């Protein structure tokens, strides 16, 4: 499901859930690009475990990337004005996670939608949550 204009958005709608790529290859590339590489915590399970972590992690801001990517697919003409993400618990690399969002507010005059955002692990435990304000064309 995609939306093109503010008129397409329905209060309470859930954006189609999505399983992002949390593979070590992806987290390694991401960590390298943002300058987080070297410690192993995003690149290597055994190095991460040696640091007391349960395994290699998905960088917190990569979770933000998963959420913005989902919003952009849902609203191809939308512009994210603001996104706020709370890192509640680690997102483990090589583990299945689901990214979801629900429409919680619509301002038809301003063309703005507020979304509640969540990243869940396979046990349906919240790892990341947040909100986004997205601007959509009015017509």
């Amino acid at each position, binding site marked *: 499901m995609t939306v093109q204009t503010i008129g397409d958005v329905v209060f309470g709608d859930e954006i189609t859930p*999505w399983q*992002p*790529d949390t593979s070590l290859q*992806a*987290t390694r*590339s*991401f960590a*390298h*690009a*943002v*300058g*987080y590489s070297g410690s192993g915590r995003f690149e290597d399970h055994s190095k991460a475990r040696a640091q007391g972590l349960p395994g290699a992690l998905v960088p*917190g*801001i*990569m979770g*933000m*990337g*998963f959420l*913005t*990517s*989902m919003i*952009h*697919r849902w609203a*191809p003409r939308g*512009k*994210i*004005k*603001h*996104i*706020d*993400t*709370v*890192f509640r618990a680690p997102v483990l690399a090589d583990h299945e996670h689901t990214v979801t969002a629900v429409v919680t507010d619509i301002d038809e005059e301003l063309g703005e939608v507020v979304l509640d955002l969540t990243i869940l692990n396979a046990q349906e435990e919240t790892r990341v949550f*947040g909100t986004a304000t997205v601007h959509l064309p009015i017509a």
Partner: protein
Amino acid sequence: MTDIDDLRSKFLDLEFDRTGFVIDAEQSATVAKTSGETRSEFIDTTDPNFEACAPILASLASGRRLPIDFPKLGGISMDGGKAVACIKPVRPGIKLTGKTHLHDIYAKSGRSGRMIFLVSRMQLYDDSGEHLATTDSRQVIRERPDK
């Protein structure tokens, strides 16, 4: 116990860091692609509307994490989250200046004790002084019981 009101009165809204950045287009595209982005303006560096994606803006780090005279709070510090406000598209390759201040300091108490939240806000400007974006970094410190 740390006096939150005292910290707020002494440190909020005072710029404590100014750092220059230039975002690399290929790095921003890699960040977007590995996050699952599909829109051309974030993944195709030849797109005339190519712009830096939100996660790479959130990755920009100030030279100092806290004001130079900010007291040591002890305890375990964790990355509590990030926020990005996009005001104008940030084009890779241009000079950016990030001006950082403490935007908020607050505490929450729970069964395991008190957590102190420090929100550092970086405002990103281009060379002409136009405000392009704002990023917030939320640092969480679990207070030691004896503090």
